[in-house]
């Protein structure tokens, strides 16, 4: 743990609360296992001492801003998470004036399970090119030198090279494990529809059966609704209790959106997302 960095976060949080700049601060504290971390909501300056920050702080706290609409909140934001702020600003879900962003540099988060912390960096962190959040009001700890690999999507191209039938088999097996707990949706900062298509009753797009056909439709639509919107925090995959490799879906779409529309979500709060705009002159594969 970087004590100095943590002190900066605590001091800032305490200031913001004492001055009344914000109603609450969303950060991290140590989890009940004493090893990993969990989200913490601080409303009382004295509780700021519970705030921590280290390589287990994987949660993307930006999601919680959607619960706190209309309230002034400060939030601890890692570089990858900061893209979610831009996404939500872009989509008019949060107001910039209501959010105080305590940016933190990130050396990369490690793989964790309850009561267990590994030395291995999360896959998304190995290719993360951001040395600091893309948007912040205060940067705790300053920029961090990162030596990231380039994102080559090699796992995606590997999948693409397989036959359609092989891919079908692979995904059906994966979706067969899905228990429709909807943790992937609930943790996602981009999933905020007041009524998700999965809960719409009329028309009933998705049945209640926890069965491959329905699960397949659930995951297909869930990930496609995030096309051009997924900011790559990979929280969905991290929280999946049955280990479905959701990043293979999200990053496939990320890759295609990059190739087809030269767009990456969450980098610019003003840039129009790919499905909100078009170029008259562009020609798609099916038109050739």
């Amino acid at each position, binding site marked *: 743990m970087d004590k100095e960095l943590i002190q900066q976060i605590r001091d800032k949080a305490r200031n913001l609360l004492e001055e009344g700049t914000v109603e609450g601060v969303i950060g991290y504290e140590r989890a009940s*296992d004493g090893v990993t971390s969990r989200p913490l909501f601080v409303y009382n300056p004295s509780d700021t001492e519970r705030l921590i920050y280290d390589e287990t702080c994987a949660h993307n706290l930006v999601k919680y801003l959607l619960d706190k609409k209309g309230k002034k909140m400060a939030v601890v934001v890692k570089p990858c998470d900061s893209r979610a702020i831009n996404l939500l600003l872009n989509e008019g879900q949060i107001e910039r004036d209501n959010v105080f962003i305590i940016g933190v540099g990130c050396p990369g988060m490690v793989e964790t399970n309850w009561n267990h912390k590994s030395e291995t960096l999360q896959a998304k962190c190995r290719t993360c090119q951001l040395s600091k959040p893309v948007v912040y009001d205060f940067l705790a700890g300053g920029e961090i030198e990162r030596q990231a690999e380039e994102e080559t999507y090699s796992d995606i191209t590997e999948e693409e090279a397989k036959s359609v039938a092989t891919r079908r088999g692979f995904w059906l097996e994966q979706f067969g494990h899905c*228990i*429709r707990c*909807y943790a992937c949706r*609930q*943790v996602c900062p981009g999933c905020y529809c007041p009524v998700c298509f999965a*809960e719409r009753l009329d028309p*009933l797009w998705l049945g*209640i059966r926890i069965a491959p056909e329905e699960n397949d439709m659930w995951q297909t639509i869930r990930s496609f609704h995030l096309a051009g919107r997924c900011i790559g925090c990979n929280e969905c995959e991290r*929280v999946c209790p049955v280990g479905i490799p959701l990043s293979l879906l999200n990053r496939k779409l990320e890759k295609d959106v990059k190739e087809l529309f030269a767009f990456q979500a969450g980098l610019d709060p003003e840039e129009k997302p790919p499905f909100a705009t078009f170029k008259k002159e562009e020609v798609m594969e099916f038109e050739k």
Partner: protein
Amino acid sequence: MNLFASKDDLIRWIGELLKEHIVIAPVQVQEQTLFQPISKAEEVVFDFNNTTLSPKGWFLPPTETLFSVQKDDGKVELVPTQVERDAVIFGLHPCDARGIALMDKPFLEEPSDTLYRERRNRTALIGLACRQAQPECFCTSMGSAPDDPSNVDILLTEVEDGYIVQVVTEKGKTLLPKGLAEYKGKVPAPPELKAVPTREVISAMRELFNDPYWEQVADRCLHCNICAYVCPTCYCFDMRDYADKGKVERVRSWESCQSPGFSLTAGGYDPRTTKGERLRQRFYHKLFYFPEQFQDVACVGCGRCVRDCPVNIDIREVISNLQQVTEAKSGS
């Protein structure tokens, strides 16, 4: 009398059981250990921490057809699902067995859920005592123990060179393989677990309902259904028809009190709209409503929700927080 079986004996025994039964046992699927029907004894995993999902799914499947609607010449007939075969759940830990015993209470209460009852009657439970406890385990605070034989037909306990076979019920006796020798050695002591002050809290629950604690702890709750679906005692369900090409079935699926439509009526009325109200329902059902109705806490201390909650809402911590709240209230 305790008997002794080597691991080879067990494998042979499972092979025998497979002839007449569906055998559901822990198997390794990618990174997970899951209870699944096996086709051969070698698939069974003996050394595992609690499986990703509890074996409750055998009795209350994630999805099942309750009955199908058959139309013949315009005449409608409803055909209920039948339980076809006897089954054995092999290798379940005592906490999971207690989970099944607790599920019995709502489902076997009259009018009993026939499909559940039939599966229950036709399934034998062969338990496996836990030689090690995980940090998330707290079964001894929830009416069970790592070596608790009370909810299984046979309990196996691993010893150095094999397994102690303890026959608990008559049903268990009928399943026993022939020729097992008596076990005369010592029965190993179960692992010790830290206590959670459940009883104290339950008696105070009525006073805690409107405490601001619920909204505070729910702040970080994502309202996913993980805790409910991994839980051996969560039993809420949904029912709906499934129609495809003239085939109509009434299906029942798992549902969780954390999901958005859970208590929302068609007319648009919902008694639980805040995060705290929704999360509170889960803990009240476990720690207050279920005990009021059936005298037992609807938790077995298996630790799955502790282990799998993405934001570390730890029921043991909730219980001790509630105790603190109670103490603070009575102190002031």
